[in-house]
């Protein structure tokens, strides 16, 4: 499960480089996210634009990531492709997370 991260002053952008977050990698994703966001600023933006498939295990791993962030820190999701967006809406997680169609949309909205 490959991730890349860059941190600006008040924002960390974590980009998923693989195209699936499924049961085969969900635990690894969760653990990598936990490590990568350990010293994150108050906003973490997860860029999912490379991801074309997510299942409920992957969704659970993203929920776990959000729950693990320290109080006061938020996880924002960007670059949701159709199949990923659908899973968030069908499980009503679109009411829990801020979802943006692209990274640019998300970045514009943060400042």
């Amino acid at each position: 499960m490959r991730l890349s991260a860059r941190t600006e002053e008040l924002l960390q952008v974590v980009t998923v480089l693989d195209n699936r977050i499924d049961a085969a990698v969900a635990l690894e994703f969760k653990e990598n996210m936990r490590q990568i966001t350990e010293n994150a600023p108050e906003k973490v933006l997860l860029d999912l634009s490379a991801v074309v498939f997510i299942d409920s295990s992957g969704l659970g791993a993203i929920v776990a990531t959000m729950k693990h962030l320290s109080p006061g820190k938020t996880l924002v999701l960007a670059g949701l492709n159709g199949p990923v967006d659908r899973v968030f809406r069908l499980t009503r997680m679109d009411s829990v997370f801020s979802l943006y169609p692209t990274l640019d949309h998300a970045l514009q909205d943060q400042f």
Partner: protein
Amino acid sequence: MIAHSPRNQTDSGTGPAQVFNLSLGGTARNVRDALATCRTRLSTVVFDQTALDQIELVMAETLNNIVEHALTGQSGDNPISMSCTLKGDALSLVFQDSGAPFFGSTLPPTAFERGPTDPKSLPEGGFGWHLIHSLTDSVSYRRCDRLNRLTIIMHVSTDFDDKTRQ
């Protein structure tokens, strides 16, 4: 993963056409590989990408459920078999495994209720069955001869012209 030869077509061409029939091992990696194979086969009869995405998700959730619950702690070669047939616009997916039965031999409840909650208390699982039920027309389960047999029906458009005109 083992792909089985297509079984003989039923007489007079009115029976369901087989899209795939394969068996696989009970790991998440096996599931990923099987999904890729199935999607390739399905793409010869279903031309709408959204429909293919939905079928793939339903197969993934069903197979993950078998791997994580029915087959926990069990080994053996290719304990899951999966077949797919199409008749008209009715896509039928049949999953069979030799694992533990559903508790009480019935399907888990389909209710998915979540009141206003603190995001930090959200569940991290339990979404799978909800997704399956949201995307399918019927799900039925039978325990027979120490096998679990789950049949899922989804109605899909197979009209190539319809989709290319959109």
